[in-house]
């Protein structure tokens, strides 16, 4: 039986992990690989690198990081942030990533999803979506540019289209829940899981182990993206897995 996945996400800028991180026990402060290896040792199911490097010139740094990650990590590595073209996909995959996540560029050019799926296989095409509930409560709108711009596109229409174009997975971030640490957006995740047959990663709002239990018990999502809970050492991946087991949620049996 397929297990639910617990996925730490690292925000990386100019080759360093950003956001407040508790660095205890890490050899190189802010080194994404050291942090990723720590999560690997805790038996995380995957790791996500989200590159928020602003300048395009500095993007070679992420390539080197991915190459190190590919040779040193024993779990899958997904990379997102600033992916615009098929060439970007090629570069990131050739550097050693297992999956590439694409966000704004897929909205601007949905054909990119289909082209990438054809060339590299659906399994490595993750479409990341930032969405927010409409003020009138009639549904959700998809946002781009880090949540600054409302596309006016309906979330349900967009995920359905992503699936038909060949997306292998949806990484769904609720802008309403993100940063609140008040729990995942159960309603939004359910709305998406009901209309797609591809895996869905829930993101945004995780503030406790219980939030992860809730998202697995109350939705049909496949994975939970976790950032600060792990980065601040409030919980280890193993703590989360143990709690899941107690709730009869099927998770990886490691160590």
């Amino acid at each position, binding site marked *: *039986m397929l*297990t639910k996945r617990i996925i730490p996400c690292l925000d990386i800028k100019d080759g360093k992990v950003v956001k407040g991180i508790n660095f205890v026990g890490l050899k190189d402060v802010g080194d994404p690989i050291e942090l990723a290896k720590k999560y690997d040792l805790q038996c995380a*199911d995957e790791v996500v690198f989200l590159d928020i490097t602003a300048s395009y010139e500095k993007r070679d740094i992420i390539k080197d990081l991915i190459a190190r990650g590919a040779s040193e990590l*024993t*779990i899958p590595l997904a990379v997102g942030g600033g992916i615009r073209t098929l060439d970007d996909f090629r570069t990131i995959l050739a550097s050693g990533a297992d999956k590439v996540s694409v966000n704004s560029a897929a909205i601007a050019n949905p054909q990119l999803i289909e082209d990438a799926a054809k060339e590299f296989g659906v399994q490595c095409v993750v479409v990341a979506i930032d969405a927010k509930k409409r003020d009138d409560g009639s549904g959700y709108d998809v946002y781009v540019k880090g949540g600054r711009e409302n596309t006016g596109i309906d979330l349900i229409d967009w995920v359905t289209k992503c699936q038909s174009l060949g997306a*292998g997975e949806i990484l769904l971030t609720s802008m309403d829940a993100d940063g609140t640490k008040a729990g995942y957006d159960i309603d939004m995740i359910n709305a998406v899981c009901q209309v797609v047959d591809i895996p869905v990663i829930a993101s945004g709002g995780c503030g406790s182990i219980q939030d992860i239990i809730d998202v697995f018990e109350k939705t049909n999502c*496949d994975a939970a993206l976790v950032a600060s809970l792990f980065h601040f050492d409030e919980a280890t991946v193993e703590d989360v897995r143990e709690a899941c087991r107690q709730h009869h949620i099927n998770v990886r049996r490691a160590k």
Partner: protein
Amino acid sequence: MLAIIDYNLGNLKSVYGALKRIGLDPIITRDQDVIRQADGIVLPGVGAFPVAMENLKKYDLIDVLNEKKEQGTPILGICLGMQILFDWGYEVEKTAGLGFIPGTVEFMDIDEKIPHMGWNQLHFNQKHPLLKYINENEDVYFVHSYYAKCDPQYLVAYSDYGKANITAIVANKNVMGCQFHPEKSGTVGQNLLKAFKEMISC
């Protein structure tokens, strides 16, 4: 010497890194002379079945792989590299595989989310040296939409996905394959590679 076959299909860095970690010094190659001298062969692969076979032909690797199979050299296919060991694949269009293991590779036509992506438990169908360091029910990382169908005599281990048994490890004499990614499967995957290493006399 262990050869990782480079036929321009997916990233080889992780496979290379995983084999390094268990003390091997593999060579990534598409050079027939190097492959001829190999004591063991790893055939990786991510992508689509027809492209994999096309690339093997393009780089003129099919004959040398046949030679090594006949010589009894241990060969391990990973993911798509395992799928092309079979007779036929049905991804995109019906395509002949290497035919090293009798069977076909078909779309996972089941009522579950596709791709089958994530960690799933291994169940053993028969004893095999590849399982030397692995326990029943340990998890490994899968990501695929097609799966192999073969006679149980070639099936070493499988995983449950919905109502389907997903072929996870196969073997036909010196030719072996795993659908999951041992290089992405933590210590369990490393233990499978360790067992493969012991079959290689180098």
